[in-house]
């Protein structure tokens, strides 16, 4: 494990999120505040769910590994549900991205810190792809949080409760897919499929369309250009 692994995994995990941050958020302090508020709400939901898990562990049988794993699964489900109940502040992509940043950071930062140090991955027979799959999973989760935020907020505004339920269920599905780790193929591939689908759904809920996309990509979108003061 070297600096190469560390930087590689960091950029895989946080690259798209940091790019989003730099291009859409960094210039305006108000948007940064909303992002941090989103991160804070995720943190609060994590603390609540870990409180419940901690209490349940204390009253359980600590020697039984099966029970501990079951409690952990319960903790995961509870955590996902709590995250979805937290109020989404107005710019839904920002609160979603805030959730994503915090969630990604909590999942992967300790792993990245360990990757800088000496060691051989998988020396006891575990998977050799631990770091790489963590990084890809984290990237997917961060982007998914943002898409979920957009769709959730839009669905709440339009009172489409089936869409809200779909968001919650897809979050649960993604988390439950990770229970199959270390069978990384089984968890990563469906996660990316869900990521792709949610991305398209979020794009359409945010008002995107094929026409907008074409205008944007060929730099002919007048509103966007005016807003960014670029002559064309």
């Amino acid at each position, binding site marked *: 494990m070297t600096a190469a692994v560390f930087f590689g995994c960091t950029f895989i995990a946080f690259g798209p999120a940091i790019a989003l941050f730099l291009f859409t958020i960094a210039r305006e*302090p108000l948007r*940064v*505040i909303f992002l*941090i*508020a989103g*991160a*804070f709400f995720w*943190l609060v939901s*994590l*603390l609540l*769910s*870990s*409180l419940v*898990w*901690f209490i349940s*562990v204390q009253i359980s049988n600590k020697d039984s590994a099966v029970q*501990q*794993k079951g409690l*952990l*699964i319960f*903790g*995961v489900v509870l*955590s*996902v549900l709590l*995250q979805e109940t937290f109020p989404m502040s107005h710019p839904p992509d920002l609160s979603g991205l805030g959730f994503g940043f*915090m*969630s990604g*950071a*909590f*999942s992967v*930062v*300790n*792993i990245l*810190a360990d990757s800088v140090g000496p060691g051989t991955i998988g020396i006891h027979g575990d998977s050799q792809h*631990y770091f790489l799959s*963590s990084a890809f*999973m984290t990237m997917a*989760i961060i982007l998914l949080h943002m898409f979920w935020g957009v769709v959730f907020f839009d669905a709440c505004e339009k009172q489409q409760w089936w869409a809200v339920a779909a968001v919650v269920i897809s979050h649960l599905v*993604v*988390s439950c897919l*990770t*229970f199959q*780790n*270390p069978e990384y193929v089984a968890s990563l591939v469906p996660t990316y499929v869900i990521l792709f689908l949610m991305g398209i759904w979020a794009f359409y809920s945010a008002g995107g369309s094929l026409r907008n996309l074409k205008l944007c990509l060929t730099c002919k979108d007048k509103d966007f250009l005016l807003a960014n003061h670029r002559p064309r």
Partner: protein
Amino acid sequence: MLFVPVTLCMLLVVATIKSLHFYTDKTDQQLIYTPFTENTSSVGRRLLNSVLNAVVMIGVIVAMTVLLVFLYKYRCYKVIHGWLILSSLLLLFWFSFMYLSEVLKTYNVAMDYPTAGVLIWNFGAVGMACVHWKGPLALQQAYLIVVSALMALVFVKYLPEWSAWLILALVSVYDLVAVLSPKGPLRMLVETAQERNEPIFPALIYSSAMAWTTGPADGEPGRASDEEAEPSGRAAAAEDDDDEQEERGVKLGLGDFIFYSVLVGKAAAGGGDWNTTAACFVAILIGLCVTLLLLAIFKKALPALPISITFGLICYFATDSLARPFMDDLAAHHFYI
């Protein structure tokens, strides 16, 4: 606005603590302001000692603040300037030399004394000029951030564990009292400065913009901070004037920077877990947001420590005891939430 400098200061402290072992090595040496040792045999004794340490430290801070206000009120400007210059000298030359030598030791780089002398001389002299006299705003801001980080690192190294947390809690209470109560020393400092229409010493305050005041109503923040870094920070906004050139800048005392960084630094030093550090980081930034929001509503000098430190302390203890085992278990099984 203020997020960038606060974030930079905290990042600098965390990066230093994680890479240089000097600042986390256990040492029996303590500051004279925390005379009671925490290496005691019983938990009760340790708790008592930390409480006493915190009381002594807060006592020193209160005394220094009152002394500063006294000197300011009776116009002993020379004494105050002398005091501030002495403490800046200490920070910019001595502490930065210590920092440089620890960096060189950690990365095993050899440097001869003349080179080090030239570097430190240049760093310190430019710093003194920027902070106490004139200099480009960005450079002054950079030096203030570095100075706060150095001070915070000294605290992280020399304050024992439990005393540090208690001191943080008590200092926020003191900040609240000193800034908001009518006879509070810091409130008197701000009001006196406003009456006399003078800015409070630049060495104590970070300001995010140049304020070319042509009229009255310049809300000044005040924070007495010297080598012992008396806390009590406030944030105040420079009011807009008729003059269009007036820049709206927000000011934050250096003691605020220092204590925020001490909190995050202690979180980073204790245990090596990044989740706790990230949690404290976000909590402090949210506290700062709320404080700035209140500032926009009330438009007068407000204490910047209480809300952030409260959120920070709650998040630290909650994350350390609850979220950390949960996340460790999840990471071990490779589950994601």
